[in-house]
């Protein structure tokens, strides 16, 4: 599985504490950044590392940072997106629970690079232990003088607030998150302007995923070159993968992109219960297109390889679907989720999600019509690129992806009024 950049210490009852983090060399990267580097140099190092955002969109973090004009005289804000809400995705949770100081130190470095006085962590309301751990860590860090006071003899001061969201998928979308943080309804915002131009309180704001930020301390400590030495050329570093579904050893794993996909599933994660076959895998949160078991066998696990089958590593939330699963019912579950979570702001998503959900409900109830599949694809296309945030597109990707690869199952269901797999969502031996 290769290098370890984040899960590189033994989990003990105290490994999340400040004392243990310091014993592992913690808070030296911020000292180095403040002592030896200008803010611009920090950003340059992060850009040079080639690190891509780990929240789903895979945008270069360094490029996002470079847009912020440090001398514009405005306050800048930094926000860690800890609202991990994509179904199947729970990898940031591992960092929040087990390495909270790594996130805090990395945020200090980012705050220095972006000249941020006030930083935020926006965390899902349902994330109870992660919230307690990150809040506890923040208390320790304040007590130790890392926040709220000038650091290491410089005049750099940063305050950080942990804000608990109420738990809505769309509040994990960066602009919806900022609206929620401002105390408003969590509606995503139209771009332009970008958040780095007008974000929180209309000021330049950088929103980064927890895992992305957590890599910063390591990049500063070890240098961009060392970071680039891991992973693949286009996807440097490691990735945290949360794996669930029909898998023997679900959990969070750190992988180095580029390894064989099959190996990860069968060797690392123990394969599918009952020694069954992989029918499909949703590789990076339900917004990424599903890959078939046959594709899994021949792909490596990285963005480049997944892109060849129209998919990607997305948010790192991997869902394994074992043989015998009914894909029609699976799509029903996904569409129920999207329908439930659509914020309702823009027309195509608000109406489209409900429409798709009702169509699939009708198919599952035995009332499907042949033209329904076209209609589902059409509604997906109507959403594609035409919504305020990516949620409308995401539902379409999930739908089109499953329909493209398992159309025979849908056609069977519609023709016979029942599932070829008895409507199973469990993993069953093929009949």
């Amino acid at each position: 599985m290769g290098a370890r950049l984040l899960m590189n210490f033994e989990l003990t009852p105290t490994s999340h504490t400040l004392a243990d983090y310091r014993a592992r060399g913690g808070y030296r990267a911020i000292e180095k950044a403040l002592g030896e580097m200008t803010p611009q140099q920090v950003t340059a190092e992060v850009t040079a590392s080639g690190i891509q955002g780990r929240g789903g969109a895979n945008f270069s973090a360094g490029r996002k940072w470079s847009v912020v004009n440090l001398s514009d005289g405005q306050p800048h804000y930094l926000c860690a997106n800890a609202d991990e809400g994509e179904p199947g995705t729970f990898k940031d949770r591992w960092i929040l629970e087990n390495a909270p100081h790594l996130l805090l130190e990395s945020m200090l470095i980012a705050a220095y690079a972006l000249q941020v006085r006030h930083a935020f962590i926006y965390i899902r309301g349902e994330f109870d232990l992660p919230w307690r751990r990150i809040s506890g860590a923040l208390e320790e860090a304040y007590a130790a003088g890392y926040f709220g006071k000038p650091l290491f003899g410089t005049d750099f001061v940063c305050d950080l607030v942990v804000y608990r969201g109420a738990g809505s998928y769309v509040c994990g979308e960066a602009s919806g998150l900022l609206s929620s943080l401002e105390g408003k309804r969590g509606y995503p915002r139209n771009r332009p302007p970008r958040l780095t131009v007008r974000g929180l309180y209309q000021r330049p704001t950088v929103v980064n995923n927890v895992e992305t930020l957590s890599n910063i301390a390591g990049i500063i400590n070890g240098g961009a070159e060392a970071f680039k030495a891991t992973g693949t050329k286009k996807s440097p570093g490691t990735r945290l993968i949360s794996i669930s579904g029909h898998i023997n050893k679900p959990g969070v794993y750190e992988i180095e992109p580029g390894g064989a996909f099959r190996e990860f599933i069968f060797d690392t994660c123990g394969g599918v219960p009952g020694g069954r076959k992989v029918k499909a895998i949703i590789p990076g949160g339900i917004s990424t297109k599903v890959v078939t078991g046959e594709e899994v066998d021949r792909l490596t696990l990285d963005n480049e390889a997944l892109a060849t089958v129209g998919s990607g590593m997305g948010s790192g939330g991997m869902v394994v679907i074992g043989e015998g699963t009914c894909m029609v019912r699976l799509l029903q579950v996904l569409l129920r989720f999207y329908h439930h979570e659509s914020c309702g702001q823009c027309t195509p998503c608000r109406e489209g999600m409900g429409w798709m959900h009702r169509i699939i409900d009708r198919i599952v109830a035995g009332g499907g019509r042949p033209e329904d599949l076209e209609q589902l694809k059409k509604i997906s296309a109507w959403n594609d690129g035409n919504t305020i945030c990516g949620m409308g597109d995401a539902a379409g990707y999930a739908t089109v992806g499953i329909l493209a690869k398992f159309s025979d199952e849908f056609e069977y269901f519609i023709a016979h009024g029942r599932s070829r797999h008895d409507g199973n969502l469990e993993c069953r031996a093929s009949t």
Partner: protein
Amino acid sequence: MPRIYIDGLPYEADSRQTVMEVAAANGIVLPGFCWHPKLSVAGNCRLCAVQVEGRSWVEISCNMPVAQDLKVLTDSDIVREYRKSILALTTLNHPVDCGICDKAGECLLQDYHYEHNGAPSTSHEVKVHATKFHALSSRITLDNERCVLCSRCVRFTHEISKTKSLGIVQRGDTSLVRASGDGAFETDAYSDNVVDLCPVGALLSRSFLYKSRVWYLKATPSVCPGCARGCAVNLWHRKPEWKLQALDARHNRAIERITPRDNPAVNGPWICNRGRDLAPLFERERATQAICAGFSVATPAAIEGARSLIERARRPVALVSSWASNEELAAFAAALGRHFTVFVKRDREPEPGEVVADDILICADKNPNSTGALANFASAWGPGSTLPEGTDLLLVWGEGFDLAQVPQSLRTIVLDAWKNPGHARADVFIPVSIQTERRGTYTNFEGTVSGFEACFEKDDSVAHAEDLFAALAAANVAAA
């Protein structure tokens, strides 16, 4: 000053403008529900999309900044297909029961649907039903099924009336516009603007609901007389060709509703609720009978009586109306100004419960033409004012002055439009026309002059003040 191209034609733009704004400024109508020139951009209806030349997708124009040589297409195949899809989605759960909808005839969805889609729905699903008549306040009811969630109404209460009294609850296709629990919408003095703002028949004025189909009505441009702002309004009443024969004739002279008429120099597209409620003020029982020395007389006889009182008076005083038009005031000044000592009287004072003044539109002076009146006659009649020594005749024009205040010995002439038992105390009473029966102008507190048109014919027994003064002065002027 970037130049952009819309469908191949060049337009000058301001660099802060969006494509939608440039289009609107040049008379190009791009369909859209959520964009409004006076509200922030929401970009949620997604209907206004255009295609940037060379790209294979569409983008919304209301949030598209202009750039030098930007070329957009508003009627390409992609755009046309896209509009169809959005309208199919908009009408997915919308009842489209225009036949009974109060907005029919002025509904954007109805218009766009026919213009840009027109195709029957391809949905086999049952429509999602929502609350039909939800009382947002005692004035406004909301039909949630017709709401397209454009958020104009919500933004209005956040950005214009500033009560923040509306919001959206729930998510997805169960989203509902609701008033905040603190009752602020009930007391929002501008709440009814959301009824005009609503692009569909979701927000309905309870006073107008099911009263009339709009195509039976005519909008006469007018000026609200409610306060010194003088907002531009439309007075809606039955078109002459649709006069009702069978019902009470009063229906044909009723003001069915009052809506704002966009005037950037005065009120923009808004008016206050009070302005919408003025119809009953106009529709009070009219004075149609002239009185002379306690007896009902024909109007010419009363005019003659008044004329001779004026002629005999040595120190006559006039209290002129601040509800009078500039033209009427000028006619008074020309005919009688030199003979009378003139004071400008306030015809109306704030009533209990009425918003006295705010920093949006409402002015403390509840008369439309105090400024115009004071431009003609400098003295104002206030609470402590008294009649000059030796006054032997008092002419009271309009309302707001109690004749019981004056000694019985003083001769009085009263000109008024509405019935009032006090009129019998006057030596001469002459009924005059009201704003809706004549045309003229008012000057608002900022000096802006706005004109109003007549909606109805006046009764024969009623005089236009503008004509009356010359008649009252005829002999007097000759003698002077």
